[in-house]
């Protein structure tokens, strides 16, 4: 009856047309692989990832080779940072999504890395799963899997960050090594 009403959501670019991104193949083991860290600008993000990297090195034998920080929380990492990560690293940990924009963009970073053939583990605080999932939908990857840590992260002490990072490490390792279908592809 109301077909003549204009749909105000129809714009020039529709995410629905995006092809489903292909996720990277997983290695059987992390031992000896080069690890990259991609932090955003949120408080404690760099320390969280550094602690995760150190524990992954100690427990699983990865070699941390590159710790980067992207310049803003809204956008995906710029091309030059993405190139560094894909050139120099075998696996990447991304985080910590602890705000409205940055949780969504961390998921977008993870998907871009996967498309470039780099297994990625994205860490989001559990207050922002809805916006992380919405970004996965926008990128054509509904059901994209990431890891959560309890919100908030920004107010943790150095010891609190370390404890939280240590707690996350087994799941990070699993996400980087379990076969794609189980680890990162929707059911």
């Amino acid at each position, binding site marked *: 009856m109301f077909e*003549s009403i204009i749909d105000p959501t129809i714009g020039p670019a529709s*995410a629905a047309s995006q092809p489903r991104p292909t996720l990277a193949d997983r290695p059987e083991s992390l031992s000896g692989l080069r690890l990259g860290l991609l932090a955003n600008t949120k408080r404690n993000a760099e320390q969280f990832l550094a602690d995760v990297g150190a524990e992954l090195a100690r427990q699983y034998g990865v070699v941390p080779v590159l710790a980067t920080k992207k310049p803003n929380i809204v956008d995906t990492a710029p091309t030059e940072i993405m190139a560094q990560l894909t050139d120099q690293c075998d696996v990447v940990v991304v985080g910590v999504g602890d705000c409205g924009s940055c949780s969504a963009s961390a998921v977008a970073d993870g998907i871009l890395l996967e498309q470039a053939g780099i297994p990625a583990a994205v860490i989001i605080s559990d207050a922002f799963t809805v916006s992380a999932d919405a970004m996965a939908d926008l990128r054509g990857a509904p059901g994209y899997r990431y890891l959560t840590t309890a919100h908030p992260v920004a107010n943790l002490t150095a010891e609190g960050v370390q404890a939280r990072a240590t707690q996350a490490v087994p799941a990070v390792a699993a996400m980087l090594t379990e076969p794609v279908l189980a680890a990162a592809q929707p059911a």
Partner: protein
Amino acid sequence: MTASPEASTDDPVALAKAAIEYCYEQGWSDGLPMVPATRSDVDACLATTPHPAAEIIGSQPHLSRSITVAQAAANAIMAGCKPEYFPVVLAAWQAVCQERSSRGAWQSTSGPAPLIVVNGPVRQRLGINYAGGAFGPGFRANATIARSIGLMVRNGYGVRPQQLEQATQGLPGRWSICLGENEEMSPWEPLSAVGGVAAGTDAVSAILIRTVEYIDNRSTDSAEAVLTDFADTLGRMGAYVGGPHSSGGLVLGPEHAQLLGNSGYSRADVQQWLFEHAVRDPADMTAAGKGEHVADRPFAMLPSADAIPIIVAGAANAAMSMVFRPFGWAAWAGRSVPVEWKDQ
């Protein structure tokens, strides 16, 4: 179509209600009823602007979303605008988009709102209120121009509350803050002239804000006493979110503006005075758990004198003003946008 299947074409009121309900069911609404937009409504908007229907006027590359002039028109009509408001909507949208903080603002936990300020004769022509009750409600142009921007974010960018939008609390009046500047009672040049557009030209400025708070001071004829009151509110710690400084601006009621003007203060003088006096002892900041980046003593809470926007609006019936709090650290980009009309 599930809206009121019993709606009968021989009862136009029932039909109108069913059309409104249909818009709700599509998920287009911000919660309030929408005016259904048809092709002829969009065409009526397009007839007011030199911009072509397909022109892209905003993008969120990280969301793979863009918005066109025609889409803006549909949302403006749905917000309740008359077609002749549309050039102001487009200028407001451009003013909002050029704010550096607007890229991530719509998803932010801060949940900021555009403070839209209109200058020029368009205020009288479209009935944009700049006098009593300037912050609203009660005036169609003010209410619907601001609402258009919210619907464009929702429907154009697909940013919806509790989904991609993650506002922790939001703020009262989000998507409804559009006021004219009371140029007639201001002692200074229009805000748009500060923003680079000649006085007397229709222009829109926009600042993303997180809240407003009143300052009621009717007890003194001393400019410095009133400025002291402003500086106290501007210098408080709550709005400080870490980093180099807090942020703040003023919508002065005409009585305060005229007291300052008559006392010899230019807009720049007011800004300088407030910058110098809105300060804190770093020990206060440390006591509140906010001392991490605070070194200077005293610590200037505002970024710089010229980053304290000063606007004049409201009625000259009581000496009160509003402090507003810009989102992020960028304050105001400082560029106003001329309104473009088709016949110019």
